[in-house]
């Protein structure tokens, strides 16, 4: 059992607070016009929880843990694909349009 001495927890806590601070500054730099895509992207990346689901679904055999893992993988995959695709759709609308009327 390497994990879960208090040291591991403190390292996790360190990572957590530093990540919160990075998140704080990065998110404030997001332009308000893109707040909807921001929600789309954060929604997709929060499904990185799929990592935990894959670990649970990994072992051979069919215990309850594995079934929970498989369900978790399905749910997180819906989100990952859905989140990134809907964000892509939104962002492709924000492309710079060629302005014809200014030329003539």
């Amino acid at each position: 059992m390497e994990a879960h001495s208090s040291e591991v927890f403190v390292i996790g806590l360190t990572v957590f607070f530093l990540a919160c601070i990075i998140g704080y500054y990065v998110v404030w730099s997001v332009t308000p016009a893109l707040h909807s895509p921001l929600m789309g992207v954060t929604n997709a990346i929060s499904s990185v929880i799929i990592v935990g689901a894959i670990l649970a679904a990994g072992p051979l055999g069919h215990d309850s843990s594995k079934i929970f893992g498989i369900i978790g993988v399905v749910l997180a995959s819906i989100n990952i694909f859905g989140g990134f695709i809907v964000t892509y759709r939104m962002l492709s609308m924000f492309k710079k349009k060629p302005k014809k009327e200014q030329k003539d």
Partner: protein
Amino acid sequence: MSTNMVAVLYLISALMFIFALRGLSHPESSRLGNIFGIVGMVIAIITTLMFKSVLSYTEIGAAIIVGGAIGTFIALRIEMTALPQLVAAFHSLVGIAAVFVAAAAFYDPASFGIGTIGSIGTSSLIEMSIGTFIGAITFSGSILAFGKLQGTVSGKPIVFKFQHAINALILLFIAFLIIIFCINQSPSIFWTIVVVSILLGFLVVIPIGGADMPVVVSMLNSYSGWAACGIGFTLSNNLLIITGALVGASGAILSYIMSKGMNRSIISVVLGGFGGEQTASASGDNSDKIVKQGNAEDAAYIMKNADSVIIVPGYGMAVAQAQHALREMGDILKKEGINVRYAIHPVAGRMPGHMNVLLAEANVPYDEVLELDEINHDFPMTEVSFVIGANDVTNPAAKTDETSPIYGMPILDVEKSQTVLFVKRSMATGYSGVDNELFYRDNTTMLFGDAKKMCEDIVKSLA
């Protein structure tokens, strides 16, 4: 793969996610940001699949394909006006996925290196139950938010006696359950925590009204991040902790921006019940005032002879799907040499940035769409303000009337422009239940009718 290699790959993945958010600082860099996000996710998944304990590739592959197909199908089909519902639905999935991962870790702690069944370390149990608790709340809260946005559940705030006391009691009960769970590690207590947290999620969102949804959706976004964080602590996985914290911070900041846009504290939005009670008291004293009415031809004439027009869209534009007709109107005006711009209030629509996406969908160039701070000082120099589907965010009472429920809310100063054209279905009050004195001003002309139809008629008259 060695533990260090895994840690490095997870770190790269986390950095990719940070770049993904960073890319959103400008529309031009945003698409690259989205690609960074996808790359980060692919790295995370492949790295995990390389674990020695991960063997059942067919099942996992099938699960990813099934989930991916469903997600792709939904994301390609969804109308942009329905984005808020979609995002709420997706949040609920993150929440419930967190619950399942926590359950898996509880039933098979050895796979995650956190002990054996019946003797999981206390800190792991606490982290696990907190992740479960937040995940379950996110799940049910998002489902109810989805229902309210979709219209399957009434968007009106549902308030009942002792609401906050009941919620507080349930919260205490959950804390008590978690303590018991840490002591006896019983599966039945685990599932009780799940069920009670789901109940609490419903109760938390029930009193919150439709137009407060931008705050709720942002808050649930934040919760889904904290849930991932909780699972990250359980599994001692830095990637989950970092990503969860990024998402949590993002949702929290959006909630803050949204509630500031309504001049209300996050607490008061969370406690809810806004918009239900005041409805009756506000109207009445304005019943004898005169409202100037106009039609599409009048509006076309007024705008054609102006130098500058600012369009102020709101949720009503989304409901009427008027964005394309509106853009067409804007294009004709621009061809006449008129300076046309769009002004977006922070809380316009049902999720942060909702109006920007709809206008972008209708091919309005993003540099013509301005935020409140950027454009508010231009209204006095503007000849025509064209308000379509917005109401409370233009109400001057927010600046003058201390008794008004929206007092102190930052508004778009449309009343300072020479003429205000106000497209509205009827004289009904806005979401806040407050009458808008703007309707009775001399420089205001009301255009009654459906927003889309009105824009189309104006386009015809302009042609």
